[in-house]
């Protein structure tokens, strides 16, 4: 951090701290009017801050005031369960004086389901900002928080980036509570923990760390919490902000933390002992630790036959390596090592290149960048046009580039296979890695031929071997090798064989089921 940054930050920090201190110091006033004034002042007189002063049970000398944010509350609850009883229910004077106004209103008047007493004014503001309604009562130093959260939310759709053919089709949405509920419906274990935290100075985003006690590794849970608490940022708009802060090696092209929109995936991972991080406002839930082998795993592997799933996983592994290494291999063969492949193939390769004016490297780089442009354009084209345009673009550009003699047909084939392969790896987290890595491989292979290609392979292996995700080696359980854990990596063994949970997560409860038992 530069000197200037430090200077400015310090000032900002001080401002922030002063403001917070001020808010905390203010206790809740006995007078309703003062409280309303304070709320309005703290929230800067914004138009969506609604305050309403009403009489308590028709008394002319006793008032209560409500404060909430328009759009964040469910108006039905507000009207029916708070306003209506307070204004219309006659007050039993004896009880009212015995119990004091605060307790009386809470226990005899408000019919909302979740009501709590609040002592601090700053907490009141926090609750209002989170969509609750605060009730101030004349002559009472405590306020009441009524849970009235309710806003427009997206329905539970199938996640577009992680669609599968078979299995549950629900996906997370942007509301934290809905997401937590979706997991609750899968796992009804009383040991399921949801621990709330707040991250972000301005956004004050609610973050929930979820794990199953006994199945998850306590060290990992503590580490996740420690890293989350260390985050100091103004706003968290997406869970990827948090992933960038807490992942072990954010500069590596390989993700060491999973983000998924599928509740079934999160539930399955939690049952393996992993820790989930829910972030309010994002449909992407983070899971840690995330290991390399999960790139080729998809939820539908577990919903289909184990034999087929295993074969598909091998295919995906192949696709992953094709996506990263095929262009580099092609360039190494064409520019340096024609003798590596069968003679007839070399001949047809060379005859395809006969009229091409560019060097093989320029040629393949040109095609790869073209595909990247098409891919990027496909995402940003409006609506359904996107796919059509990108297909047309690819066909037209590819076809005419070949017939115009700009590129050889082999390059078009190589680049399209690479692109297709990169999409057959199910993990969306992997797709960015597979877009980036072919380029360094291409460059090194173009310079050093098949040696460069081998160099890249070893370099990737060393890099993968050096990564860790929350203390678990990234290549586990392939390396360090563990035979039992490998029942669910490249191969997916039948469910009745997978008696134990993966051993790289060190927990007390390791057994999935008591004995190996087939269906019959």
């Amino acid at each position, binding site marked *: 951090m530069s000197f200037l940054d430090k200077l400015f930050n310090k000032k900002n920090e001080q401002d922030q701290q002063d403001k917070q201190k001020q808010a905390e110091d203010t206790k809740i006033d006995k007078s309703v009017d003062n409280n309303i004034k304070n709320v309005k002042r703290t929230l800067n007189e914004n138009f969506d801050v609604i305050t309403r002063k009403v009489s308590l049970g028709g008394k002319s000398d006793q008032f209560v005031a409500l404060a909430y944010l328009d759009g964040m509350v469910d108006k039905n609850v507000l009207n029916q369960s708070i306003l209506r009883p307070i204004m219309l229910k006659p007050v039993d004077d004896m009880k009212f004086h015995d119990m004091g106004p605060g307790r009386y209103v809470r226990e005899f008047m408000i019919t909302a389901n979740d009501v709590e007493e609040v002592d601090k004014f700053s907490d009141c503001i926090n609750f209002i900002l989170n969509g609750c309604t605060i009730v101030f009562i004349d002559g009472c130093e405590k306020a009441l928080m009524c849970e009235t959260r309710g806003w427009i939310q997206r329905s539970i759709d199938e996640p577009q980036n992680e669609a599968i053919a078979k299995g549950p089709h629900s996906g997370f949405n942007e509301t934290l509570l809905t997401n937590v509920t979706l997991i609750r419906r899968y796992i009804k274990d009383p040991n399921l923990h949801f621990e709330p935290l707040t991250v972000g100075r301005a956004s004050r985003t609610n973050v929930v760390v979820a794990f199953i006690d006994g199945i998850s590794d306590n*060290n990992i849970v503590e*580490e996740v919490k420690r890293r989350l608490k260390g985050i100091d940022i103004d706003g968290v708009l997406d869970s990827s902000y948090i992933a960038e802060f807490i992942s072990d090696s954010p500069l590596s092209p390989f993700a060491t933390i999973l983000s998924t929109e599928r509740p079934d995936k999160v539930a399955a991972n939690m049952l393996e002992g992993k820790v989930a991080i829910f972030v309010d406002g994002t449909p992407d839930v983070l899971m840690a630790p995330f290991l390399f082998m999960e790139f080729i795993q998809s939820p539908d592997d577990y919903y289909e036959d184990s034999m087929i799933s295993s074969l598909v996983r091998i295919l995906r592994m192949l696709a992953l390596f094709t996506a990263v290494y095929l262009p580099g291999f092609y360039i190494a063969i064409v520019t*340096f*090592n024609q*003798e*590596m*492949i*069968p003679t007839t193939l070399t001949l047809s390769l060379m005859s395809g290149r006969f009229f091409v004016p560019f060097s093989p490297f320029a040629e393949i780089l040109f095609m790869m960048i073209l595909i990247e442009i098409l891919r990027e354009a496909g995402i940003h084209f409006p609506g359904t046009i996107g796919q059509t345009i990108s297909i047309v673009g690819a066909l037209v550009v590819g076809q005419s580039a070949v017939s115009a003699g700009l590129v050889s047909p082999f390059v078009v084939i190589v680049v399209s296979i690479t692109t297709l392969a990169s999409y057959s790896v199910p993990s969306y987290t992997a797709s960015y890695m597979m877009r980036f890595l072919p380029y360094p491989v291409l460059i090194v292979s173009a310079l*050093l*031929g*098949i*040696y*460069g290609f*081998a*160099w890249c*392979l*070893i*370099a990737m*292996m*060393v890099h993968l*071997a*050096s990564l*860790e995700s*929350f*203390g678990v*080696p990234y*290549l586990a359980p*392939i*390396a*360090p*090798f563990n035979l039992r854990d490998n029942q669910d990596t490249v191969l997916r063994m039948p469910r009745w064989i997978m008696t134990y949970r993966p051993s790289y997560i060190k927990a007390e409860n390791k057994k999935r089921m008591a004995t190996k038992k087939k269906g019959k």
Partner: protein
Amino acid sequence: MNNTNDTKRACMDTRGYTFLMINTLISLPIFLSPSPTVAVSRQYAWLSVLVGTAQALMVGYVVIKLGLTYPDKTIIEYSQDIVGKFAGKIVGLIFLAVFLSISVMALREFTLPFQGFVSINIPLPTLLIMTMLLVTYAVIRGLKTISICSDVIIQFFIGFILILLILPTKNLNILNIKPIIPHDWGRVVRGSFDSAAFLAEDVIGLMLIPYVSNKDKLMKGNQLAVLLSGIALSAVTAMEIVTMSYERVDSTIFSTFMLLREAQFSSSLERIESIAIAMWGGLVFVKLSVYLYILADGLRQLLGLKDYKPIVYILAPIITYLAVLPRDISEILVFPNKVWVPIIYLAVLIILPVILLLISTIRKQGEKK
């Protein structure tokens, strides 16, 4: 998570140690050793390898026995406890010099198949520097990374051995290996020293033992590594003799590449020796990394430093420079034939550990009395 600054923290378990040891032991001989062995012991080379394995097992026993006497220290540190401060430093230096010589030779040999079998016109220094960059990267990332790499490589290696033993079967000619019972045992024993010298490299265990987490089964793991490597080496040597006849094995340096080159099962499986080159790359790379690591780590202990990383940055260019020096392949092969087998194998790998073990045992017994 393991934020302990202590470099002595465990990097691998016994299984990891075994895999790493197999990787280190077999990487060079599986490609290089059949030819010189066959030169001496003809068609009995596979037996020679087994005799060599037996020798290596004895060395392994001494090494692990010695290493487990001081389970939390490396030879560089406890040699000073055994034979005194000055002599201990000399012993440490001898070991480091051996490790250095192996690193240099392995680095140079690493590039050989890339020059010989894959015709690329890249200048040798470029190849060496690029390789050294990779090795340095792995070493800087630590022994744990190297151990994980070797785990990956060994899994491919198992497949590779199967390929080596299955694909060439169509060229089988049993006459090549007959008579199976040798007339001349002297020949067999003389031929055994080459492979024994390679397989006795588990002397690096003296540097690695403190980094192994669970030392109960270390002896078993180490001996298993030597035994498996020896059996695999013997099987491959036998395969080469059976399919290529010992005269041809003798005349080719990288006979294992030739074995695969001739093992075309059908016309659709051309150029499968590229698998061998890939395997060579992985195996020798891990061996190089291990040696650079123990070299840097040993120097760190000898000099009493805290961090081994600066030493790696200094060592890497030196090793690269030394590796450029030999002019051609015949000069490279002088080292294993003339220096490694007669001098280092006998003096450093056998006699030195035995003496150290003897002295330490006598001292311990003296302390008890």
